[in-house]
Structure formats: C-alpha cells, structure tokens
C-alpha cells in the first residue's frame, strides 16, 4: 500500500467516524452491509475503468453497457428461458466483444477513446431503450432463480455479519487485478504503454494489443457488474439504469491515484476510492442532506481530495517554498520534477 492509498484510507476513516458520530445508524449492521453491497458492485466496474485509464484511455460507455447488457440478461432468462449459466456466459461474452470493438476502433482506426466511448454511451443507451421499447424489464411474479439470486445478490453470515456476495466478488476481482497489474508482465506492459506508448513500442511491446486487451478486460468486468446490478435491482428501466456510472468509475479511479494521462494508479486505490464514494452517498442519506445535493457533495469532496493530493505532491518536490518558480517564464521553464536536460 503506497502513501497515496494510505492517506485515502485515513480520509475514509475520518469521514466514516464523523458520520457515525452524528448519526450512529451509519454503523448498524444493515446499513454497513448495504453500503458494502454497493461498494462491491461499483468497485467491479471502477476496476474495469481503471484498466483503460492506466493505458491512457477512457471508457465513457460503462453506464450504458450496464443498462443494455442488464436488460438483455433479464430478457434472456425471464422471457426466453435461457439457462442462466448460458445467459451469464453470453452477457460476459457480449461485454468482451464491446471492449474489443472499442479497443480496435481506438488502436486500428486511430479514433480518440473519448469519442469512441462517447458514441458507445449514446448508442448502447438507445439500444437498451429500443430493446425494451422503453418499458421496464424485470422479473415477473413467480420467476425465480434461487441459485443465481443467491450467488449474485445473496449474503453469507460471516461472524454474524451478513457479507454481501457482491463484495466477495469484488475482493476476488481486485485480488486478481492486483496481481495482474502490479506483479505480472502484462501489468508492466499496461503501465509502460500508458506512460509512453512510443518507448513501449520501441521496447518490443505490442502496444496495440496491450491497449485492446485493456478495453476487453474493461468490457468483461463491466458485463459482470451489469449482471450483479440486474439481479440486485430486479427491474431495469433502461432510460435511467446505470446512468452516470461511468463518472462514478472515473471518480473512483482518479481518487485512487489514476492519472487521466495514463500510466499511473493502483488497484487498492481504486477500491478505496469506491468505498469513499459510497460512504459519501451514505453520508448524504444519513445526515439528512437533501438528496438533490448528492452529486454536489461528491464533486466537492473529489475536488478537495485531488487538490490536497496535488498540494502534497508539490510539497514533496519543492522542499523549500518556491516563489512562483517556473511559471513566470516566457520560456516555459521546465518543472524540476521531470528533469529537462
């Protein structure tokens, strides 16, 4: 765990303590368990987003994908009696294909990731609404999938605490992602491509493939999250389901130390970022803040967090206070941090 993650953890504990102090209901088992469930689901697609951000890309279609794949999933198992195991496989495959298409458009057609995934955001949302004719897709009376429901939306008592399965899934996903990103060769390649694609290519890294894989991983994990959300909400109105989720994902990644320029970020950070966002959500509910202010609170906290981080970084690099050094010049004086020789 690096310094950044540690300070994020401290921030979470402080915010949590304050909320708990003002409203002890925060610590009730039911509330904690529900919050954790949210963390599980949001964490999975935030990690998905992190993969893309680390290679220097961006994925804006997360929310729309969750809506589209969600309605298709429910339709498959409810209306078409597809075996749920097959349906899960099909949905994940769908997510992987979406990622593959995005990755190919970005690397082969050289379209900017922002544009590709913005189009994705619009297209998938439209497709989801068209698919259900704008109606809500849900489980009718009598439709019941006990195993699937237990697996995705169930909870298991651990030492008397009802631990949501979504959070267990997150732990597994995060564990695998951590090893992949921070210990494996592939992870090194992801960071290298994000830092300097040209240098990575000159080092013999097939940077296009690496980038496409990042989008594919992102698509697959998002599809997984889509299934969890579908099973949790049990009914999906395609116009709003999952909307703004891409922004939650980006926010969690940024809070967790990912740089939108690529090449930076840690899995622990992303998970902690998700936790912080969910605690804030909870704070708004519990402290009686008008829910209309929900996004405003979140935005403010992220901004403060990023500012504080920036401040700390600068403090570390300019040990002595610099008097506007480096900004005054016409000659665009280089930052001391990245040495210009």
């Amino acid at each position, binding site marked *: 765990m690096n310094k950044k993650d540690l300070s994020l953890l401290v921030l979470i504990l402080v915010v949590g303590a304050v909320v708990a102090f003002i409203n002890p209901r925060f610590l009730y088992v039911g509330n904690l368990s529900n919050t954790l469930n949210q963390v599980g689901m949001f964490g999975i697609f935030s990690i998905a987003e992190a993969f893309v951000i680390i290679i220097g890309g961006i994925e804006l279609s997360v929310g729309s994908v969750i809506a589209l794949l969600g309605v298709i999933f429910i339709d498959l198992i409810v209306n078409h009696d597809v075996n749920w195991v097959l349906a899960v496989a099909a949905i994940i495959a769908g997510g992987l294909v979406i990622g593959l298409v995005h990755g190919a458009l970005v690397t082969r057609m050289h379209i900017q990731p922002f544009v590709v995934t913005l189009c994705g955001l619009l297209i998938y949302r439209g497709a989801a609404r068209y698919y259900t004719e704008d109606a809500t897709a849900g489980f009718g009376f009598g439709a019941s999938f006990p195993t699937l429901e237990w697996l995705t939306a169930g909870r298991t008592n651990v030492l008397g605490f009802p631990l949501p399965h979504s959070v267990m899934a997150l732990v597994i996903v995060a564990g695998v992602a951590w090893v992949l990103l921070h210990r494996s*060769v592939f992870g090194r390649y992801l960071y*290298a491509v994000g*830092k300097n694609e040209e240098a990575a290519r000159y080092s013999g890294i097939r940077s296009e493939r690496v980038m496409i894989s990042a989008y594919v991983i992102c698509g697959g994990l998002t599809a997984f999250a889509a299934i969890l959300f579908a099973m949790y909400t049990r009914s999906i109105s395609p116009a709003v389901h999952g909307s703004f989720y891409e922004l939650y994902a980006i926010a969690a990644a940024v809070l967790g130390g990912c740089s939108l320029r690529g090449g930076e970020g840690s899995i622990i950070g992303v998970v902690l970022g998700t936790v912080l966002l969910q605690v804030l959500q909870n704070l708004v509910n519990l402290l009686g803040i008008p829910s209309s202010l929900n996004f405003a609170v979140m935005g403010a906290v992220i901004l403060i967090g990023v500012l504080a981080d920036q401040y700390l970084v600068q403090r570390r690099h300019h040990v002595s206070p610099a008097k506007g050094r480096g900004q005054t010049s*016409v000659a665009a004086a280089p930052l001391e941090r990245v040495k*210009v*020789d």
Partner: protein
Amino acid sequence: MPEPFLELVDISKSYPGVVALDHVGLAVSPGEVIALIGENGAGKSTLMRVLGGVVEPSGGTIRVDGAERSALTVAEAIAAGIAFVHQELNLFDNLDVAGNVFIGREPVHGGPLRLIDRKALYARTQPLLDRLGADFAPDAPLADLSLAQRQLVEIMKALSLEARLVIMDEPTSSLTLSETDRLMRVIAGLKADGVSIIFITHRLNEVMQCADRAVVLRDGRMVGALTRAELSPAAMIRLMIGRDLKSLYVPPAAPPGEAVLDIVEAVTDTYPERAVSLSLRRGEILGLAGLVGSGRTELARVIFGVDPLRGGVIRLEGDPIRAASPRAAIDHGIYLIPEDRKGCGLLLDVSIAENISLPDLSSYLRFFLVNTAQETENARTQRERLKIRAPDVGTTVGSLSGGNQQKVVLAKWLSMRPKVLIFDEPTRGVDVGAKQEIYEMLRRLADAGVAILMISSDMEEVIGVSDRIAVMHEGAISGFLDRSQFSEHNVLQLAVGHAVEMRVP
C-alpha cells in the same frame, strides 16, 4: 578583461542522495565565451539551471551587477539579461518562427482587443534572422525546420530579450558538423557584440574552436579552469576524468565475416523515390554518416519494423524477413537503440531497473509474475558495467543527468542477445570517458559476432570507431568508404552528394 557582471559564489545544491553542486564559483565578464565541461552527472546542467532561475540552490550567493541574491527566479534571470537555451528545445511546433520568438510578448494593436500585430511581429523578427545568418523566413512554420534551425530560433528568442549572457546546454549534441560550424560562427558573432556565452558540450574540439576559457566540473565540484593558452584536449580530459584516454579506434579481432543483414533496394516513406542497399557483416561496425534529414533514422526505423518497408527486401542471414513491428524485429535478434531517448527510449518516471528489463520482461518470469529480485540484480550489473551514476537502480530515470539516461537506454538492449544492433546516435550527450567505454563495448559486441550499424553525426566518432562508413544523401547511399579512405573531407563530400576520388590504398 572587463569586470564580471555576474558572479556565482559557493553555490551548492543537493538532491536526495546526490550532491549535485558542492561550493562552486563562477564569474562571467561581458563578451566572454566560457565552455563548461565535465563528466555526465558532474553538475553542469544543474549549475546552469541555477543561473537560469529554474533551480534554487541550497546554498551560496548569486551576485548580479553587484546586488547579492540567494536565488533567482526565471523572471529575475531574464530581467538580469540571462537567457537559457535548453537542450530539449522549448518551442511550439504549431506556431511559426516569429510567433515562437515573441511568444508571450507579441506586439499588439486594436486597443482592448489586443490583436496580434503580425506585421510588427515579422518586422521585429527579420533583423534577428539576419544577425544569425539564418536561411528561413519569419513566417516559416516551426514544424518545417530542422533541429539546427530550431536551435537558432531559441537563440533568437534569447537575443530578442536583449540577453547579456546566453547559456546553451549541449547545443551541438544533435547537430551535424556543418551546422555546428555555423553555430560556432554565431557564437563568435555574439561575442563580438559583447554578449557573454556559457556553453556545455562533450565535444572537445568545439571548446578548442571557440572558448576563451574552460571550466571543469567533476562530482559537483569545480576541479579546474583552463585559459585559452592552456586549452588542449588532453588537458581537458585529464581534468574531467582524472586520467588519460587511449585512441578511439580498436581494430576488430578478426576480419569481418559474411553478411548478416542485407538491405536490398529498401524504400522508405520519407523518400519514396530513393532506394537504399547496404549489408552489415558479422563482426563489423558500419558507420552511417550523413546530414540530419538524409534518411538515416528513417532507414533504421524501417529495419526495426517501426515504419513499413515500401519496397525492396531485407534479408537476415540469407532469408528475407518482413519485420512488421519492433516485436518481430526483436524476435529476429535485430535491435534499435533510438536517437530520441525521451520520446522512444525511456519511461522517464519509471525506475532504472524497470526500464532496463522492459524489452526482455519475459525472461524475468517466475510463474507468470515478474521476478523483481532478478530484475534489480541485472540492473545493478548493468549499472556497474556502464558506470551509470545514480544512487540506486530504483531511482527514476527522469532525475538522471542526460548522459546517464543515454546509458540506461544502452543497458536495455545489452542484457539481451542481439544478432544485429542499430545504434542511432549512441553517444549523444555522453561524456568522453563514458564514450570510450561505449566504444569499447561496441567493439566487444562486434568481436562476439554481432553486426553493428552505427548512425552518427559526430565526425570524430564515425571516423574513429567504424570499420567502414556508408554515407547517405537525400535518402540514398552516396558512397562507402573503407578505412584507408576515411577522412572528414571524404565523408562531407559524400554527405552533400559529391563523389570522392578513390585513392588506391
């Protein structure tokens, strides 16, 4: 000698784990040309950054026109008439020449609208161009200029600020001989106008050519100064590295073997009408000379699979290969050490160890994870071998001095098993001592059976190290020279497209 207007007294600067400057003093008088020399990491750039206001010293005083200060800001440095031409040029290639020279100080008209007065802008730029004898127009887009021309733009920027002192950090490291000559003339002209110049270089003949005195740094300390009369390459080398150097050329252990890489009529994107043929022989160092823009780097990129081959064939040990990507080239045992180390060679904010292992990560596998212990150990070995000056192999590459960064780029490839090595400007920014080590390494690799192509704009290097020289001119090979024909004159003749009289050895 007129009174100095600028004095650095007892300047120190430390970074975590490194003392970059240790009580260094320097006085600058009007119209004086000072060469600042020393090994990689000696602290030259740091000292100049202190003068330019980019780095705040941890100790010492700076005296400008009698006024004492503990540090300068960039604005104060500019106000004091100090202009800094950074080695990595700070120019905007989406602007034209005049726009770059007057960036941030554009003449305006139209009252509150503050529209840019283009006429005045160009009118003010023209005299600067004339003064430097530049051959491009004020409205030439920067993107169309060569590296040398861009350097001139930076100098114009300095002149437009009425600089009394122009600092140039390794201005010639990417220039060819004729361009360097022109820069030397520019320096002489500035000196005649009473402007002082401090320039950093690793090419000692430039010091001989134009410096009034040389100041030598070693390990952050000033180890000596040589007056014009005392200047000689041997004296400088002795002060810089504390010992003498042998001559450059070491003949190969065995005569060159069969051709390893045959390039037959290769066509690149840049010169679609020209074809290049040459072969690299086992155990031979083939120097590739030519002016900047003659297509050498393009050729290297095609061989390495970065750019597509538009025509012709490349044969490796007789079999035609088509390297569609650097990965494919690497799998064939062909490596390229690129010229642009910041853009293509290194991940700047990543550690030395991780940079070195990057092209060959799969051989550091333990299960499918990276074995960091082995990675660190290999990086340590390379650091010893190449004498990379850094507190530790975990240091980020971006904080190393220029020459040491170059050594890291070399280290990346030397830990692997090459058949063909292409070096594009292998010693750009590297000090004399380390250059010697790199040359010895090239020879060792060649003797071990590697075919080496060395692209170089450094005449001394091309002539001193190669076993054979190929010269390029406008996208085609204009001639080959054997050792008996090696001379600056011959290389230059071929580089500008003239023929040379072939002497019988």
